[in-house]
């Protein structure tokens, strides 16, 4: 399961970042708090497969499909 499959209000744990992501993007996600073992909560989904909104640690982020589906959940 990836972060793109998460449902509203669902809580999940980050497993890993896909190697499909460029190293720069991976590193940025890492710095934003998308670290293995970190809890993530889905706050909302947008219509028409728009970006997903998640809370991770102390911040709220919105990610589009081609990033969210490269973040593996445990």
């Amino acid at each position: 399961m990836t972060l793109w499959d998460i449902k509203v209000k669902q809580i999940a744990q980050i497993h890993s970042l896909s190697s499909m992501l460029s190293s720069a993007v991976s590193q940025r996600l890492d710095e934003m708090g998308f670290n293995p073992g970190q809890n993530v909560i889905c706050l909302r989904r947008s219509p028409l497969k728009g970006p997903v909104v998640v809370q991770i640690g102390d911040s709220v982020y919105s990610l589009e499909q081609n990033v969210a589906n490269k973040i593996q959940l445990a």
Partner: protein
Amino acid sequence: MKKIILVGKPNCGKSLLFNQLTGLRQKVANFPGVTVELKSGQFKQFEVVDFPGTYSLQTLSRDEEIAISKLHESLLDDDTALMVCVLDATRLERSLVFGLQVQQLAKKHNKAVVFVLNMIDEVQRYGLKIDTDGLQQALGSPVFALSAKALVGLAEFQQALPELADNPQQHIPDISEETTQLNVLQQAKTLGQTYGINVDVMLKKQNRIDNFLLNNVFGGLAFLFIMFFLFQSVFTWANPLMDGVEALVGELAAVVTSFTGEGIVTDFLNDAIFGGVGAFITFVPQIMVLTLIIGLLEDSGYLARAALICHKPLSYFGLSGRSFIPYLSGHACAIPAIMAARTIESPRKRLITMMTIPLMSCSARLPVYALLIAVLIPEDHTVLGIFNLQGVTFFGLYLFGILMALVVSIVMKHALPQQDDKSDMPFILELPTYRLPHWKPLSQRVLNSGKQFIKRAAPVIFVVSVVIWFLGYFPQGGGLQNSWLGTIGHVIEPVFAPLGLDWRYGVAILMSFAAREVFVGALGTMLGIDGADENIGGLAAQIQADGLALGAGIGLLLFYVVALQCVATVAVLRAETGKSRIAWGLFALYGVLAYFIAMTTYQIIG
């Protein structure tokens, strides 16, 4: 002068702190092709340089790359005495990821660093506390808890700052230099957990507002309402200000020309300077009003939400959610719209957005549309019995511009080469806390937008106005018809013949390259109607009597939708993309495209 460098994450309140330290006098340095702005101002005997908000020293986009390389540069500068790293007290862990990187960098360059724990008032509002002393101990650098907005602790910081900057060697971070990325994340986490606050209350409040503003139904309505407000403000409410500036330019022209008397000098001042350059100055208020509204949206936190709402639909066209506001603004004036495209996260999408903005029907096209519609479309015709045909045509022209922009976007999405990773940035957007905007950074921004507009567009407008005036004025005495411009019009008449237009239209089109609205006055002069700008009805009747084929007229309308007849826009495009090639290439491309559309229309309708 010794320098103090200000760094921090986006949304940490750094701009306000900068304003509080330096007052309202500041200089802005821009770099061609990127959105990086370095602001500098004076605090006591020091120069304070405000760097753009960055998430990390590891860069993701070209903009960040340039910002960080400038930071490295200034750390090599002997004048740099101190780095002030601003942390968001409500998001300690995230701020510290960048803060610790900065600390290491400072250590490497043997520079002093102090931390500012900003927005401490928000922490206090929730009845929470941060152990500043403990944090200072753990970090090994001085920490000042303050609120640049609520003015808590600011005076103390201002008092301590000169002393810190005068004795930098005592504040070089006391840490080991070799720390890995993993360590930074780990350390930020530990420190965040030990000293940070529980943000759940704050995020709950933010989430409650989002439940409304991002709701599928109410959120959509709120979005439409806010965008309508933005559109109204630049279109209608900026008008009195624009009229004011116009009147002022008129007054000034009257005063100045009263000294020069009759003759060539007065004609030059009136037509080329006050008429040409003066007309362009009237756009300044509109640009400033637009900047104000966008600034309000950004500083309040709504801009990120608007981008989220628009992202998916616009991504089909190779655009970003952040392209929406520039597109909307483009209906007022392309120049602030192109500058507003700076907020777009992906350089590639930003480029596509900037390149297609000139297709939006800006307010300078309105007089041209109004004139030609009055000529071509009977006033009393309706569509479906309720819609006035003239109104429908107006709407159709706007729609045609938007459709053209989307088509060109799709073409560019496929045609522009995908370069390396750095050329594109995925849509990862932080939704910041909703906050009340502060007037100080906002007013700075509004003033800067006016200044930058004048700086970038005025020289080219000046040159073109003077050249067009010169060609239209000489040889003296024969009027516009017999001037060099008239001669050129006759020579290039064959070019306009396939569009069903004669040389007089050709001359009016040539003259409108300085600014589109010039077309109306110029055509008026060619057809012997003085003051056509105020007498569109009279000119329309004259054109009807003179005879303009329906196909040629509609073709001309479509020509004005597509052609990039605005040297100021070309100048701003050149500055913002950093490439003349792109700006003049677009000028030629849209010119050729407009020509073929107009020709096809005339050939079909006749």
